């Protein structure tokens, strides 16, 4: 397979304009020479392994893949992948990736971010990236805690959380990243779990294949500052706690039962699904909540440039001379 097959036929692929290779690739080809420095037992290792294992499936040329990150534990990710990459500043990765993806149609652009990076300091960039629908895939590692700054509550921490900065319990009401993304009219929204490699890989494949901004929330365990945050969703007896979303699967919320359809343009019922886990008695959905087609910002921006270029033939220097020499002119001898 040289490019990921589309789970939803008819949509244009997110990697359609990225050069492919016939050379067989392995995870090792995507592994950089840098030592991985996350804490032992960190969920980030599992995600890194899954990404390194999955990238060869895309069949893309390695030099046409770019990973951009912000600041936080997960944002060290680009250093460990032997692709092009930028470890930028706190919260700004979506804006930098927007510039890269808009400037170059031949790149597969990925953003690696965390709950603090994406939803707190970078919340504005995230919602606007989703709204614009720039062709990139955002991996949001959600461990519901600040790890790099050593254990303060995050915008996804449950209210009342006792942390270093909240000895009497946190007062903030948390964001649900999937609800937020659906509210921002994201075209692709999914959730997966660090420990479920198979599910993670399936979701990543679909996200990469989606043309537009894909948001993938990854529940990720922080063994140091928030260990076991997602334990109820893991292991053999977690089946009842998880609702595995697939197209056509029967789902129930607010007393309604319907067949889940991620391609439904109206996000109302997808949003209702995203609210299920706010009730401890209903299961937590994982999988693809929403995947709809909408023209991407970058494709349209490039199309405008192409249209303008076609309408203005001639050498750039001649056109520049005409431009600066336009308007009323006069001669001084």
């Amino acid at each position, binding site marked *: 397979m040289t490019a990921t097959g589309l789970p939803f036929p008819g949509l244009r692929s997110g990697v359609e304009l990225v050069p492919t290779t016939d050379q067989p690739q392995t995870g090792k080809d995507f592994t950089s020479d840098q030592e991985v420095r996350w804490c032992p037992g960190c969920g980030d290792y599992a995600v890194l392994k899954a990404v390194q294992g999955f990238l060869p499936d895309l069949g893309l040329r390695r030099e046409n893949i770019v990973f951009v990150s912000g600041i936080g534990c997960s944002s060290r990710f680009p250093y460990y992948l032997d692709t092009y990459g930028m470890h930028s500043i706190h919260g700004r990765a979506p804006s930098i990736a927007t510039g890269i993806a808009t*400037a170059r149609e031949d790149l597969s652009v990925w953003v690696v971010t965390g709950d603090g990076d994406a939803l707190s300091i970078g919340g504005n960039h995230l919602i606007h990236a989703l709204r614009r629908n720039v062709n990139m895939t955002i991996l949001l590692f959600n461990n519901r805690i600040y790890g790099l700054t050593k254990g303060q509550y995050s915008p996804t921490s449950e209210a009342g959380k006792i942390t270093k900065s909240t000895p009497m319990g946190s007062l903030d009401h948390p964001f649900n990243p999937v609800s937020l993304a659906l509210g921002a009219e994201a075209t692709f929204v999914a959730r997966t779990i660090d420990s479920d490699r198979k599910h993670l890989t399936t979701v990543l494949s679909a996200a990469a294949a989606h043309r537009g901004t894909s948001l993938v929330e990854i529940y990720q365990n922080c063994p140091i500052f928030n260990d076991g945050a997602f334990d109820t969703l893991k292991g053999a007896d977690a089946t009842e706690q998880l609702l595995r979303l697939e197209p056509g699967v029967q789902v129930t919320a607010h007393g309604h039962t319907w067949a889940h359809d991620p391609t439904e343009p109206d996000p109302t019922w997808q949003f209702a699904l995203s609210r299920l886990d706010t009730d401890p008695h209903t299961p937590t959905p994982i999988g693809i909540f929403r995947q709809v087609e909408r023209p991407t910002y970058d494709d349209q921006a490039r199309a405008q*440039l192409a249209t303008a270029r076609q309408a203005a033939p001639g050498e750039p220097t001649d056109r520049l001379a005409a431009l600066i020499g*336009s308007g009323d002119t006069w001669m001084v001898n």
Partner: protein
Amino acid sequence: MTLPNFPAEIRAPQGTLPGVSSFQVHFADHDILTAGDAPDVLVAMNPAALRANLGDLPQGATIIVDTHDFTARNLTKAGYESNPLDLLGDANDPLGAFAVQPVDLTGMTVEAVKEFGLSRKDAARAKNMFALGLLSWMYGRPTEPTIAFLEKRFAKVEAIRDANITAFKAGWNFGETTEAFVVSYEIKPAPMAPGVYRNITGNLALAYGLVAGGVQSGLPVFLGSYPITPASDILHELSKHKAFGVTTLQAEDEIAGIGSAIGASFAGSLGVTTTSGPGIALKSEAIGLAVMTELPLVVIDVQRGGPSTGLPTKTEQADLLQAMYGRNGEAPVPIVAPQSPGDCFDAALEAARIAITYRTPVMLLSDGYLANGSEPWRIPEIVDLPKIDPAFATAEDLTEDGKFQPYARDAETLARPWAPPGIAGLEHRIGGIEKADITGNISYDPANHDLMVRTRQAKIDRIADSLPPLEVDDPSGPPGHGKAKVLVIGWGSTYGPIGAGVRRVRKAGHHVAQVHLRHLNPFPHDLGDILHRYDKVLVPEMNLGQLSLLLRGRYLIDAIGYNQINGMPLKAADLEHHILTHLTHLSEELRAN
């Protein structure tokens, strides 16, 4: 001073050329003897008024048109085949030589006075007061005398009185809300070089300079920007030049503006971001990222009055130290400043040259005076423009064992390789954490940090090697060897007023030298020598002495400031007085010794 002008016919057909009446006003802060030869502003209530008065306007004048009356019928009556307002900003804009502000004067006036229950005709008549209010805002005129006049004039008809006052205030408020801006740039008196000329504002010249930077480097230009007065016109202009490969992204905020530009630069475009002082404050961390990642980036600050929101429509040059030092850590950034509206073209091209050649963010400091002021500009020949070589890294840059070294350096410029994605073998990671010399890997090594801090500074200092010698304007002889003992040094938009002030001093029979800085960081190599050749160095600035501080710190000279921070350009007469005072002091000191 005023000049009414109306047709002899009691009611010549409205909307036709013979039916146009006008009223000319001339105001100034000094004695004036006429109603003025050529108006700076024309308020045209319909197409005929525009057509009839256009010939009286100097290039660069402001025109406020009431769009409400630019109907097909009125256009035809005035002899227009098409609506000239439809072509505003186009290459063949018939009003391109003027600053045109299309405003629905009638519509907004009627809306503003509707509470007074006037007939539509009476309500629309108050548009004159709306226009007067707008002009009062633009020229900073007090509102109280006009309101007092209206209260007296229409004392007997309450509704008319209140409608006129309301319309006047609404016009003033419209100016404030939309940050309507008007300046006229004082041109340094000098003979005009032969060539083809056009009128140009600073923001337009700057946008053209950025387009030229793309053409001359062969790079696509990517502007990431958030609207802000007085820089937004650069975004508007560049958005028209997609045919040159210019992408403009109106970002969600100032940070995303520069973030997307940095991303585009990483991807191989010439990244540009445009803003004013408050925006620079927000972009500071990202500028530091561009310093650390050593990517080309042009950062344009069209300065306005500060601090905070300050005076958005007034000029100031108080962001110099922010540009120089406004980042955490040792984060040197080259600074260039245009000296006149037309010079914004060359300054933008120079900023692009430095950014691309040295792989660094470059700060360009324009200001509101340059941005909205205009001057006759000699249109350059394309062959005379500098060529800029992006010199992208290639697979040939790999070491013998096939490794790419993103932080190896060019021996002359100390620039690192620029390797946009897409080339096999050059895959690399950059970021804001300190980089190891040569490899670019993360490094916390103390000795490496010391080396990298000094190397980044040395790279910026090396830019001075590429700068031409300063041009000292001293008709009395070579610097230090003529009769001039006093040097006036400035930067940015003060060039015109300082030049005019210096000419007045010379006309009065005195000697004085002038030098003006294009490069504020690094300073040209010969600056120190020039400064030390004069007995006194005067530094006029529209701030509290920011260039003075830099000159004193760097060259240990007694730079004497002349500082005006009232939102207005410096005045030639004030500068003349200031220079003459110091000339007198100097001769007294010399006599006493």
